[in-house]
Each structure stands twice: as structure tokens, then as C-alpha cells.
């Protein structure tokens, strides 16, 4: 069964703003799906649609086969949500907050306390568990929100900018935990972020969104095929390649594109045979960021043409 399916999912707010525009995608169980786009692209609206907090204007979606618009509670049983506006109670301690949310998710008190202790330890909040939330820093609150979303062992986690406000060490902890959840427990992760480099390190599939419209969805390899699947090679040599177009960078540095890594040895061989010296070769594929901007450009050209 697919974890999430969206078919032409559309949300137009009463003021006429089209926040999500005919978005379609599917993701499998255990995937870490990066839903990526700038602020205001429609990511949070999509999370709210997938949790039944908003009713779609058109189209539909299902989370583990349940339609959130028809049965929001059915989806809430399976999901944990972390968003900027989903906060916890200042007058309660970290532990009291987790015990309360555990209780409203139907987790029995003893199991909830044990689970909360494990989450406090994993998120390095153990020393603050009996402190009131009002004394927590932004990063601690963010980590506690993650613990809260995981207290009932959800099958799917919706995380909206989960590492915002975290220092690099804690961000790494959170990333490790997300990977562990997906790989070991099979939890599906729906991760919304505008940090494309961060998403590329973590996610197994992507949905790229801008102004409510989905630019593309798929794995990194699939997305590359939409733009350019080859390699960008940076060559440092005493001679430039003679039969491949290149861009001279500075002095003996050249940039060129190849289709696969197998094209590198013949290129090097030819330069050496011509008496040239090779000082260095590095190859890289398009990053997610480059793909995103290339797709944006493509869409801009398409819209201008129409």
C-alpha cells in the first residue's frame, strides 16, 4: 500500500489564493520524501490537506488508504505532525507535555512514560525533561515537538522544517533519528523544507513545488533525467580536451560535461597521448538545487511561450 497518494490535489482559499494547484504524487512506506520549495510555495498547506485540517477545493488524497477529508481522525491515528504553529503548553514540563499528548493519542500512561524517556534520551533533552516548557530554548522546543509527534509511534511523520532553530550538532542528531525511523521502523517521513542541500542528504524521493504547483516528483536520478543526467567534469591538465566542448576556467582548469563516468578514462587517455599532463579530475552530477532552479527556469520559459 502506498503511504501517501495525492491526485490533482488543489486548495484555493476563500480570498482566491491558489495555495496548492493540481498536485499529484505518491510515496511508498518507509520513504523519506522531501517536499521542497521556498516559503509560501504551498508545503504547509499540503501537510494540512494530508491531515484533514483543510478540505481540498478539488482533487483528493489518501494517507495509508484513508481520505483525510472524510476521516481526519483516522489519519491522525497514523500520523505525527511537527509544524511551526503546532506548539505545546508553556506551563507544563517537557515530560508533562509528552504524557498529555500520549494520553490524547490513546497511549497508556506507563508505556507513554517509557517511550518519553527514550525520546528525551535520543533527542538529548533528558536533563530538561522536568523543566517547564517556558524555560526551553527554540532548539529544545523543536526537539520536544519531534518527541511529541513520535510519542504514539506514528506510521507517518509530517515534518515542516524540523531542523529550523537547531545547532549543527542537534540538527545532525535529528537527521540521524529520521533516518533510523525510516530504515529500522519503516516510518514514512514527509519532510517539508526550503533547504535543498539538507534535503538531498536525507531524502530518498522528492517533490519540488513552487507557487502551489508541483514542478516534478521522483528520486534524484529520476529528477536528473528531466534536466540533465550527465556529469559535470572539472579537469586540471596542461592541455585542454581536443574533441569535446569545454569551458576554460582559469589557467589549466577546464569544465566540460560527459554522459557517464565511463567517458572519463578515454578523455584522460587522449590528453596523455597528446603529451599533456593530468593534474586532477573531479566529476559531479547535478545537485538538487541545480535541478530545482533548472526546472523553475524551464517552467518560466514554458509559461512565457504560452
Amino acid at each position: 500500500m502506498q503511504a501517501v497518494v495525492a491526485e490533482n490535489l488543489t486548495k484555493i482559499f476563500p480570498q482566491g489564493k491558489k495555495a496548492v494547484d493540481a498536485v499529484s504524487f505518491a510515496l511508498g512506506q518507509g520513504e523519506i520524501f522531501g517536499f521542497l520549495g521556498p516559503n509560501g510555495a504551498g508545503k504547509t498547506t499540503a501537510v494540512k490537506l494530508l491531515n484533514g485540517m483543510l478540505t481540498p477545493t478539488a482533487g483528493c488524497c489518501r494517507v495509508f488508504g484513508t481520505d483525510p477529508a472524510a476521516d481526519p481522525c483516522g489519519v491522525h491515528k497514523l500520523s505525527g505532525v511537527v509544524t511551526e504553529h503546532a506548539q505545546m503548553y508553556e506551563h507544563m514540563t517537557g515530560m508533562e507535555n509528552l504524557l498529555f499528548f500520549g494520553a490524547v493519542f490513546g497511549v497508556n500512561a506507563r508505556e507513554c512514560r517509557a517511550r518519553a524517556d527514550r525520546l528525551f534520551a535520543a533527542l538529548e533533552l533528558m536533563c530538561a525533561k522536568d523543566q517547564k516548557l517556558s524555560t526551553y530554548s527554540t532548539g529544545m522546543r523543536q526537539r520536544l515537538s519531534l518527541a511529541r509527534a513520535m510519542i504514539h509511534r506514528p506510521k507517518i511523520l509530517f515534518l515542516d522544517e524540523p531542523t529550523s532553530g537547531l545547532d549543527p550538532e542537534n540538527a545532525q542528531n535529528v537527521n540521524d533519528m529520521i533516518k533510523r525511523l525510516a530504515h529500522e521502523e519503516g516510518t514514512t517521513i514527509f519532510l517539508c523544507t526550503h533547504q535543498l542541500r539538507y534535503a538531498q542528504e536525507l531524502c530518498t524521493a522528492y517533490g519540488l513545488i513552487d507557487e502551489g504547483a508541483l514542478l516534478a516528483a521522483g528520486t534524484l536520478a529520476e529528477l536528473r533525467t528531466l534536466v540533465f543526467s550527465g556529469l559535470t567534469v572539472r579537469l586540471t591538465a596542461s592541455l585542454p580536451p581536443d574533441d569535446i566542448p569545454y569551458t576554460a576556467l582559469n589557467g589549466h582548469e577546464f569544465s566540460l560535461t560527459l554522459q557517464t563516468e565511463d567517458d572519463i578514462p578515454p578523455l584522460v587517455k587522449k590528453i596523455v597521448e597528446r603529451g599533456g599532463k593530468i593534474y586532477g579530475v573531479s566529476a559531479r552530477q547535478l545537485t538538487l538545487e541545480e535541478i530545482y532552479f533548472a526546472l523553475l527556469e524551464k517552467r518560466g520559459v514554458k509559461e512565457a511561450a504560452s
Partner: protein
Amino acid sequence: MIHSMRRAIIKKDLRALITNKRQLIPLLAVPIVVAVVVPSVFILLAHFSPQEMMEMEKLAAFLPPGEQTDGTQQVMLWLLINNIMPAFFLLIPVMVASVSAASSFVGEKEKHTLETLLYCPLPLRGVFQSKILASFTLSMLVSLCSFAAMLLVAEAELLLTLGSPVFPGINWLVTLLFVAPAISLFVITLIVRGSAKAQTADESQQRTIFLILPVMAFIITQFSGMVFASAWLLLGVGAAFALLAGICMRGVPQKISYETLLKR
């Protein structure tokens, strides 16, 4: 399981109301003034007023047959305890219900905790019912405790000044068991109804301020002697508020949805 989820919300709401100093002050101050200070002032005034100034024979006619007496002070205090104080007393459920419901519904929205709560697997109706029950429970608890405190202080004062107690009559039974619950429910439903639009708890509370006016008018009628509160009149007042609460609740499911609640 649904019951334990609801119980958790009710417990959390009650605790939040009791531990918040900003809410606790009106929750304690108004009942103390209404249930302790006001009756004490009246009892002392009655005790020290010159009895020649009063023409109590006509008023004595309003007393129930069993309570008919020639004692001027006794007539005055009986009317004070059983007619004027129930009218004053209604300020307590109005105030407690409005503070607690505004905090419970709109306060959570204001502090961005409502969204977190709405992601729980309890239907929206269940979340609202739990919150209504928490506000109603607090309103009734404070009302009953205030009545107990008033009874204790007033009877002690009456014993000291008059030498004999003046027991509360049937008006109190109707006030405590019917009018106070009905008026609490009406205030809560008014706030629930407006919770989708209101952005702050203060704004939400202000919507119910106008309810003080009919209560004040009721108090004035008791002082002026225009209409004396009988059990039947109080039953009528309670029925009117219960009806209004019912009418208010009818439209709530259409007005309230996840979407309207989370609108910013």
C-alpha cells in the same frame, strides 16, 4: 479510549486555568467579593441600621408562611439572603464561565497549542465537548464553593449579630442547580460559537461582557422591589438561559471546523 482522551483534555484545561495567575485572580476575586464581602456588608448594614427607618410590614408579606416574623432585621436579612444574594450570585458563573471558556478555546488558539491538539485522533466535536465540560465543571465548582463559603461566613455573622441563623430557601436550590448551570452553559456556548472568529482570549471574553447587564438589571429589580425573585421566576430565568444555550449550540457544528479554527 475516547473517554481517557477526553479526560486528559479536561484535566489539562482545569490545571491550566488554576495555575495561570492572570486567570486565577478574577477566578478568586469575584467569588470572594460576591459571596463573602457583599453579604457581610449587607448583614452589618442591616445590623447597624436604625430600625425605625424601616417599614417592613409590607415586605414581610413576601416571606413564605413558615418564615413570617415581626422582627424587622429578620425580614430584611431573609430577603437579603434569599432574594438579593441569588441575583448577585449569578455574577459568579457568568464570570468564571467566560474566563475559563475564553482561555480554553480562544486562549489555545492564541498560544498556537490548539493546532497541536487538533492533530489528535479525537473528533473535533469530542475536543469541544471536553473543553465545554472543563469550563462548565470549573464554573460549577467555583459557584458551589462560593455558596459554601457564603453560607459559612454569612451564617456565622448572622449568629453573632442576630443571634439566630437565616437559612437559605428554595431560591438557592433553583439558583445553584438550574440557573447557574444554565447561565454557565450559555456563556460557554457563546464563546464556543465565536471561537472561530476571535483571535485573542480577551476579545472573546469581551463578547460576553454584555451578559453582565441582564444580571445587573436583575439585581436592581431585587433592590428596588419591582419584582421579587421567586422560585418560579428563577426557574423561568434558568429555562430562558438553557434555551438560549441550546439555540447557540445548534449552529456550532456548521460554524466550527478545523479550517475555520486554524484560519489566521
